[in-house]
């Protein structure tokens, strides 16, 4: 079977879900006639028309709120945030309105909010963000952030079928760099399940999204140069977190490095560390370490961005320290 890119995998999921369920519709800025800033929704307008592929005003509060209202009425809207950085505009709508709707009012709100996320692309402060940590501590929201083409497709289908709001972060660095074969049939990846991206026994790297690939590169280097057998866990879902997978890898390797592209303070690595503490502290042979972005807005110049974001040598450096502890 032919390989397709991460971006094409998402698009394939959107086509298949729109075909499967007439309640699924797309709404976002420049997603119709133009096909979206990254062309993720290219071709949907031609096939499904303006009533199901809605070019919206520049209006994140408006479209997220409207999606919620439509979802209450039985629709399954998929909102594109043109760059995920702009989801901040809809923070109130997502956290105060959408996330609480089922709990306080028994209103189902099945909707997906998706958008290009992440750095390593010279996008500067407003086209590179990873705002997932801002949402994982809001009960009522689910958050996924795939790293492979197959997971991108399978998680998108799961997100659209989920009966609650799912924030779907798409890594724009991976859009056209990563390819994969799509499993046959109706490929759905369950939300809340991590994936072992690489089996290992000496230490574990827990990560997600673009840094999965950095961690895999680092693991290869560590095997080659140090003889270390590194396990890489791709979380895939950030809310809910797969505690079982985290505990399993801790019990297997007893040493954990958490890597994420998001900034350090308040990042999800802190939460994972706390859970390891609570659930399996006695299985640790070393303190949990983390490699993250520095706590700065993401700068534009390549030399600056490369310094701020975690790189393969950073992961190798940290893993060696952990192995030697």
């Amino acid at each position: 079977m032919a390989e397709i890119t991460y971006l094409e995998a998402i698009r394939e999921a959107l086509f298949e879900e729109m075909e499967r369920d007439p309640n699924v519709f797309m709404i976002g800025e420049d997603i119709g006639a133009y096909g979206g800033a990254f062309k993720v929704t290219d071709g949907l307008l031609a096939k499904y028309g303006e009533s199901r592929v809605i070019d919206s005003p520049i209006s994140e509060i408006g479209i997220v709120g409207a999606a919620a209202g439509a979802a209450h009425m039985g629709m399954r809207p998929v909102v594109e945030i043109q760059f995920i950085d702009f989801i901040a505009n809809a923070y109130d709508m997502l956290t105060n309105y959408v996330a609480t709707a089922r709990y306080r009012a028994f209103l189902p709100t099945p909707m997906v909010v998706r958008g290009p996320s992440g750095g390593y692309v010279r996008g500067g402060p407003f086209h590179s963000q990873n705002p997932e940590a801002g949402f994982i501590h809001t009960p009522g929201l689910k958050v996924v952030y795939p790293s492979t083409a197959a997971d991108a497709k399978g998680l998108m289908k799961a997100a659209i079928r989920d009966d609650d709001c799912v924030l779907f972060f798409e890594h724009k660095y991976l859009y056209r760099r990563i390819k994969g074969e799509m499993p046959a049939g109706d490929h759905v990846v369950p939300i809340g399940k991590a994936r072992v991206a690489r089996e290992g026994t000496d230490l574990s790297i827990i990560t997600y999204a673009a840094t999965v690939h950095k961690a895999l590169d680092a693991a290869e280097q560590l095997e080659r140069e140090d003889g270390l057998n590194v396990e890489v866990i791709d979380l895939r879902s950030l809310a809910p977190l797969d505690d079982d997978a985290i505990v399993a890898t801790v019990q297997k390797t007893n040493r954990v490095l958490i890597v994420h592209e998001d900034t350090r303070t308040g990042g999800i690595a802190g939460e994972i560390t706390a859970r390891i503490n609570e659930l399996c502290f006695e299985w640790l042979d070393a303190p949990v370490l983390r490699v993250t972005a520095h706590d700065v807005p993401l700068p534009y110049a390549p030399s600056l961005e490369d310094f701020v974001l975690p790189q393969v040598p950073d992961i190798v450096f940290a893993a060696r320290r952990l192995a030697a502890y």
Partner: protein
Amino acid sequence: MASPRSATTRGRGRAAAPQSSAIAKGGEGSTSLTRAQRIDLYYWMRLTRSLEERLVNLYRQTKVVGGLFRSLGQEADAVGSAYALRKGDILSPLIRNLGSMLVRGATPVEILKQYMARGDSPTRGRELNIHFGDTERGFIGQISPLGDMVPVMAGVTLTFKMRGEDRVGLVYVGDGATSTGAFHEGINFAAVQRCPLVVIIENNGYAYSTPTTKQTAAARLVDKAVGYGIPGERADGNDVIATYEATKRAVDRARRGEGASIVELMTYRRKGHAEHDNQSYVPEGEGERWARENDPIDRYVARLIGEGVSAEELAEIDVRVQREIDEATDIAEASGVPEPLDALVGIYADPPEEKPLWFRAGKRAAVDVNERPAGWGTFDAPAKGGGSD
């Protein structure tokens, strides 16, 4: 038929409601409503006011758990506007739209249980006051951030349009919410998409303590309709018939596929933001003047009497309302408090519930068992039973 005080967006007027002369009472507008419907409007307004008066009593007895929000003096705008909808339509109320919710089918028992945070209240004790809804009966519960319901109702009505359903939505905002981004984005979206949505701006003069003159430099809030390219109409919100007729025109437009509209209803908030608010910011005599000269129920009673309805007939309605409220109060007071573990149910469809945290393991009702012994809050409580208020 237009009421004498309703005006199109091209008319002139004042933004601020508090000068009651701004909405001088004139002749009451004509209507096509039947006699039975006009009596119905009186019932809903009276029920709204009397139910709130009962809530004040319960509040003073500390049986209302949180704050109490009154719509005293605004019953006409709530009831008259909601009355313009029909079955299948959906309305999103605000904190001063108890009357609108009653018209849509919310019951006094539900309101009382909700305020008293009972376990079988419409939100099972999760939300306060009148923050609840029922899409079957046609109302969706608001949240506290103001303006947010405008985009949500744009989406509800977008769905009506997408499915070709003969349904209309109505959303209330106050003068204060017109300053929010959500109001702007929601109404702009609804206008562009030609959603069958009526946006009611209840201009009651104050947002908490802030007068409308400090909320906006616009001469009239209804003028904002021009900027969105949609029709706007202003009406006397203390005239239940004028309110009904203006809203009905907007609802009919929406039903005909002509898109969204704004209706600005001029009224006055006679009580504070909530029951705790002493209204120190209100000029002396202002509220009293509105109560004396422009009470919506007094005005409507005068109209009905003038149309030949007997005072006895209205008094019978008052008695019926009191009886209904008494019965509802008995039912509400007999219902229990929520089971603590119910707090962990239904955040998501899947998983269906959260687990209690480790320090609560095995404790079914930790608060009751450990932190609130019998007699809590009383000085000389008996060891068993003898609940106090």
